[in-house]
């Protein structure tokens, strides 16, 4: 597999989480040697993260967001930068809510699916980065 960096710019609305996932799938399908568990985990983490950005950062007015994906033989990583309001983000270990809670699992799930999650407020943008080490090629 060769290294690749691919970027999507989107505005919500009209773009939504399906726009993001279509993009992620298009990027990953170029890398046919990614094993299923890495693909599922990375795609799920990225959709969770983008959903979180769209849902919590929008504050009713919509946002613009830039998503970049990097893939190489060793790692899958992504960066999401958005114009949403500054979020109060606490990244401790993954903590799941009670069993019958109907929300509150997204961030915990992301932390379980990838090796690193990082958030920072840079100027007027929220910037998230995630990465997952790939299973070694056979």
């Amino acid at each position, binding site marked *: 597999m060769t290294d690749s960096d691919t970027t999507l710019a989107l505005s919500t609305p009209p773009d*939504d*989480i*399906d726009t993001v*996932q279509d993009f992620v799938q298009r990027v990953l399908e170029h890398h046919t040697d990614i094993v*299923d*568990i890495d693909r*599922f*985990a990375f*795609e*799920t983490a990225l*959709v*969770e993260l983008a*959903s979180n950005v*769209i*849902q919590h950062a929008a504050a009713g007015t919509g946002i613009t967001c830039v998503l970049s994906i990097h893939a190489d033989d060793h790692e899958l990583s992504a960066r999401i930068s958005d114009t949403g309001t500054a979020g109060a983000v606490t990244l401790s270990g993954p903590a*799941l809510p009670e*069993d*019958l*809670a*109907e*929300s509150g*699992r*997204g961030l*915990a*799930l992301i932390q*379980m*699916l990838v090796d690193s999650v990082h958030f920072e407020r840079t100027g007027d943008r929220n910037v998230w980065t995630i990465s997952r080490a790939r299973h070694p090629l056979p």
Partner: protein
Amino acid sequence: MNFRTETIAGNVAAIRADGRLNMVSAPLLREVVSAAITAGTVRIVVDLSGVDFMDSSGLGALIGGLKVARQAGGDLRIAGATPQVALVFELTHLDRILQNHATAETAYRD
């Protein structure tokens, strides 16, 4: 994503879902479950065999549906979970609450 509801043996409402169960489609699933219960069928099975992707909002909708069904004296079960869906259930430990059944038709065979 679309949902089709049909009544199967045992007076069970089988909700067949296709596509992605995410923040766009999860609210619709909640409505479909509520509609089945309002129509008088409180035993629900959500057939996930056509769902190739589910995130935490999809999980939330299933848990919401389970609570509504139980409050009505019924239950909500799942069937046909695909590998990505099974992974999400497993990581969140919700496979203890919503155990996967092979098919919608066998979900209430106990």
